C-alpha cells in the first residue's frame, strides 16, 4: 500500500514537472510536434516509393504511420527513469529519494507512468494530426477503423506495453546510476534500435536472419502489431495473441529490469556513486 502511495505521489510529481513548467497546453503542443514530423517523414518516404512503383496501398501507408507514432511513444517514456536519475543526480534530488523510506524503484515507476500518460496524449494527438495532414496533402484516405471498440483495444494495448517499457527503463536506469556523462545519448540509441527492430516502419521479415526472429520476440514488436490489429485490420484473434505476447514479454522485461536495477543500486551505494554528479 505504501509503495502504491509512493508511485501515485511520483506520478503526480512527474506530471507536474513535465507538463506544468509553462502552460500545459503549450507543453503538449511542443511534445506533439516532433512525433507528427517523424511519423510524416517515414510516411512520405513510403509514399514516394509507392508512387514511384505506381502501387500505393493506403493500408500500408497507415501501417507505417501508426508504427512510426508508436515507436516514438515507447522511446519517449522508456527513457524516463534514466532521465530522472541523471537529472536527480545533477540537482542533488536523487540522493534524497534514495534515502527516503520508499524505494527509488517506486519513484522511477511513478515518473515513468507520468511520462506514459503524457506520451499517450501526445501520441494520439500526433496520430490524428499526421493522418489528417497526410490525407489532405497526398489525397489519400487513411483506412483507420475508429470505433469505440478499436480505440478501447488500442488503449488496452498501450497499457499492456507499460511493463515492457518500464522494464527497459529500469535497465537503462541501472546504467545511469553509474554514468554521469552521455546518459542523455541513450534515448537516441533506444529509439533508433526500436525503429529498426520493432517492426515499426517495415515488417520484421525485411530484416535478415536471425534479427527477424529476435525482433518478433520483442514485446514492443508485439505491442505495435496489436495496435495495428486493433486500428487497421480489425483482427481480434491476432490482436489477442499479440496482446498476450506483449504482456508475457513485458513481465519478463520488468522482472529482469527490476532485478538488475536492485543489484545496480546496491553496487552503486557500495561504490559511492549515487550522488556523483560528474565523472
Amino acid at each position, binding site marked *: 500500500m505504501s509503495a502504491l502511495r509512493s508511485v501515485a505521489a511520483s506520478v503526480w510529481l512527474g506530471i507536474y514537472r513535465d507538463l506544468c*513548467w*509553462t502552460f500545459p497546453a503549450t*507543453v503538449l503542443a*511542443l*511534445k506533439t*510536434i*516532433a*512525433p*507528427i*514530423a*517523424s511519423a*510524416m*517523414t*517515414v510516411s*512520405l*518516404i*513510403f*509514399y*514516394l*516509393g*509507392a*508512387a*514511384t*512503383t505506381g*502501387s500505393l496501398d493506403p493500408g500500408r501507408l497507415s501501417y*507505417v504511420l501508426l508504427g512510426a507514432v508508436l515507436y516514438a511513444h515507447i522511446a519517449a517514456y522508456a527513457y524516463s527513469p534514466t532521465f530522472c536519475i541523471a537529472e536527480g543526480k545533477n540537482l542533488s534530488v536523487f540522493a534524497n529519494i534514495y534515502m527516503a523510506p520508499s524505494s527509488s524503484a517506486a519513484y522511477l515507476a511513478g515518473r515513468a507512468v507520468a511520462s506514459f500518460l503524457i506520451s499517450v496524449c501526445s501520441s494520439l494527438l500526433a496520430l490524428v494530426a499526421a493522418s489528417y495532414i497526410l490525407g489532405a*496533402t*497526398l489525397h489519400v484516405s487513411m483506412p483507420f477503423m475508429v470505433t469505440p471498440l478499436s480505440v478501447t483495444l488500442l488503449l488496452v494495448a498501450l497499457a499492456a506495453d507499460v511493463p515492457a517499457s518500464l522494464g527497459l527503463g529500469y535497465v537503462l536506469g541501472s546504467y545511469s546510476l553509474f554514468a554521469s*556523462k*552521455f546518459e542523455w*545519448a541513450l534515448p*537516441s*540509441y533506444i*529509439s*533508433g*534500435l526500436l*525503429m*529498426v527492430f520493432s517492426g*515499426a*516502419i*517495415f*515488417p520484421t521479415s*525485411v*530484416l535478415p536472419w536471425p534479427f527477424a526472429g529476435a525482433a518478433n520476440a520483442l514485446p514492443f514488436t508485439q505491442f505495435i502489431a496489436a495496435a495495428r490489429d486493433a486500428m487497421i485490420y480489425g483482427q481480434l484473434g491476432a490482436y489477442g495473441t499479440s496482446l498476450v505476447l506483449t504482456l508475457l514479454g513485458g513481465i519478463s522485461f520488468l522482472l529482469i529490469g527490476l532485478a538488475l536495477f536492485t543489484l545496480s543500486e546496491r553496487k552503486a551505494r557500495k561504490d559511492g556513486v549515487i550522488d556523483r554528479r560528474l565523472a
Partner: protein
Amino acid sequence: METRPWLRTMKARAVVRLMSIFGEPLWIIVNVGSPVFSALALALLYRSAGMANYTGFAILGGVMISFWGNVLWSMASQFNWDKQEGLFEIYLTSPASMTAILIGMSVGGIVGTAPSAAMVAMVGYALFHPPIAADWVAVALTFVVTLVSLYAMGMTLSSLYLAYGREAESLNDSIQEPVSMLSGIYFPSIGQFSPFPFLVQATVSLIPLTLGMDALRRTLFFSQGISSVWPNLAALAVMSLVLLGVASFALKALEEKGRRDGTLTVRIR
C-alpha cells in the same frame, strides 16, 4: 577591427570544442547512434517500399543529420548553456569578438562532427551499397557551401536563443524533427519528386538545409555538376551572408536589451 585577436579568439574557441570531442572518444560513438540507426531504418524502408536504388538518400540523410543535430545542440543552445554556467558574462566582459567565438564554435563543430558523419556513411555504404553517380567536385563544393550556410543558421539561432530561458531546450526538441522533415533530409522535399505543394516547397526553400540537401542528392546520385546546381549554391551563399549579418545584429541587440533589463547574468529563468 584587428584581425590577430579575432583569429586567436576563433582558434581558441575551436580548439576548446575539438578538445572536448577528441579528448573523449566516446563522444564520437555517442554522436553516431541516432544517425546510424535512423539511416539504417529508413534505408530498409526505402528497400521495402520498392526503392532499393534510393537507399543512398537515407544514408546521406544520416550523414547530414549529424551536422544538423550539432548545429541545434552545440551551436543554437550553446550561449544559453554558457549563460547558465556563468561563462557568457565572461565572454562579454572580455575584449574577444563574439562573432569570432561563434565562428570558432562552428569550425570546431564541423571538424568534430566529421568523424561521426563519416562513420554513418561508411556503415551505410557497407550495408546497402547504394548506387552512386557523383560529380565529386560539385559534391565537395555543395557540401562545403551547405555546411557554411547551416552553421550560419546555427549562429543566428544561438543569438536568438539568448532571449529564451529554460524553454530553449524544449524549443530545440520541437524544431529538430519538423525542420528535418521539411528540409528533406531523408527524401526530396523540393523539386519534381517532392510530395509537397508548390507553396510549401517555396517556403521550405528558405531553410538552408533544404537547398543544400537537394543539391547534394543531385550531385551525388544523379551526376549533376555545378552548372546544374549553381542556383542552389548561389542562394546558399547569399543565405550564409544574410544569416551571419542577422546573427551579428541579433547578438548586439539582445546584448543591449539584456544590459538594460539586467537579464544578462540571470542564469535560470
